[in-house]
């Protein structure tokens, strides 16, 4: 269920959002040139920050639930619509590469007074409004190829804990590979 605006969860979401924005800015992700480095393989900060966030959230959610501090049944998992989400992902990626910012980092960038960040914020808000106005036409595609709520443990048929371990190992391997690529690119450009 989406929490109503009067719900205290909105306040919590606001606090978490400010924390997330602060962490993004501290990691330097309010800077478009730094993010663009991800696409030229010279700076993997985005990959490392985001994968770290995934690992921290995943381990936190798993163990908080295990210790009875969090009810995972109340955590909203968006439904999968395969084709529209594949196309949406490609459009998102293209926009990210062109602008050098994604929605979250553009807000951080705008909040720190950067003009390019503000331009991207206005651009994605215009995109949201445009998509909303075209929704009646896009509706059938928007709701096509529904797959319901997919969770990796269910799809792969393995326990949650095994997926948690696999994701952490993948993150570790990914970080090692990313740093090798960064070092190689630095030698080439240096």
């Amino acid at each position, binding site marked *: 269920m989406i929490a109503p605006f009067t719900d205290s969860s909105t306040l919590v979401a606001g606090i978490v959002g400010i924390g997330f924005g602060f962490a993004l800015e501290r990691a330097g992700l309010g800077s478009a040139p730094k993010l663009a480095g991800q696409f030229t393989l010279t700076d993997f900060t985005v990959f490392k920050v985001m994968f770290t966030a995934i690992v921290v959230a995943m381990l936190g959610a798993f163990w908080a639930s295990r210790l009875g501090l969090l009810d*995972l*049944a*109340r955590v909203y998992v968006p439904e999968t619509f395969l084709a529209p989400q594949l196309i949406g992902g490609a459009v998102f990626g293209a926009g990210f590469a062109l602008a050098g910012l994604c929605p979250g980092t553009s807000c951080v960038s705008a909040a720190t007074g950067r003009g390019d960040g503000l331009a991207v914020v206005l651009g994605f808000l215009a995109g949201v409004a445009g998509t909303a106005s075209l929704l009646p036409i896009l509706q059938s595609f928007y709701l096509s190829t529904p797959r319901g709520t997919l969770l990796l443990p269910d799809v792969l048929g393995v326990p*949650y*804990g095994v997926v*948690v371990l696999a994701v952490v190992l993948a993150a*570790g391997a990914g970080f090692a590979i990313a740093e090798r690529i960064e070092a190689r690119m630095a030698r080439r450009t240096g």
Partner: protein
Amino acid sequence: MRSRVVVAGIAALLAIGAAFVGNPEPHAGSNANIRALADEIEHESDHVTALELAEWIRQRRPDLRVIDVRSDSEYSAYHIPTAERIPLTMLAATKFDSRSTVVLYSEGGAHAAQGWVLLRTAGVRNVYFLRGGILDWMDDVMNPLTSSELTHYFGGTARTGAVPLPGGATQVVARMRRRSC
């Protein structure tokens, strides 16, 4: 560098621990959980009586969800006020708010009791089934030997009375009684 190694080590330990425990639900599927469920059954804290449920509905107990696991036609013929129908096959996939008090009922209680085990095993906490099912509901709330406030509240009548139950429920109960005998 040293702090990175420490953080990576903590993540690795937590991940290996997760792989060993397997499930994020506390005690889910473990022997400890099965023992806890057995204790609940032994101490009869797994069910409510028809009068208790009627009182909860009348009090508009917050976050009460009454679930009818019978067939669609049985639900359409008569169901306990405020009840929603969720078949057993859909029950385990249904998300329940952790604050909810869930009461399952079936015709006599067996299916609801099985649903209780399904939900408790899935980690839903405040679950009960209606002992005696809708048959007890009819006997104790809608058609008791002597009428009570609850009977009036739900529009029932004492067995000696001649007023028919709403929605032809009298015939439905009679049919259920014949079938269950």
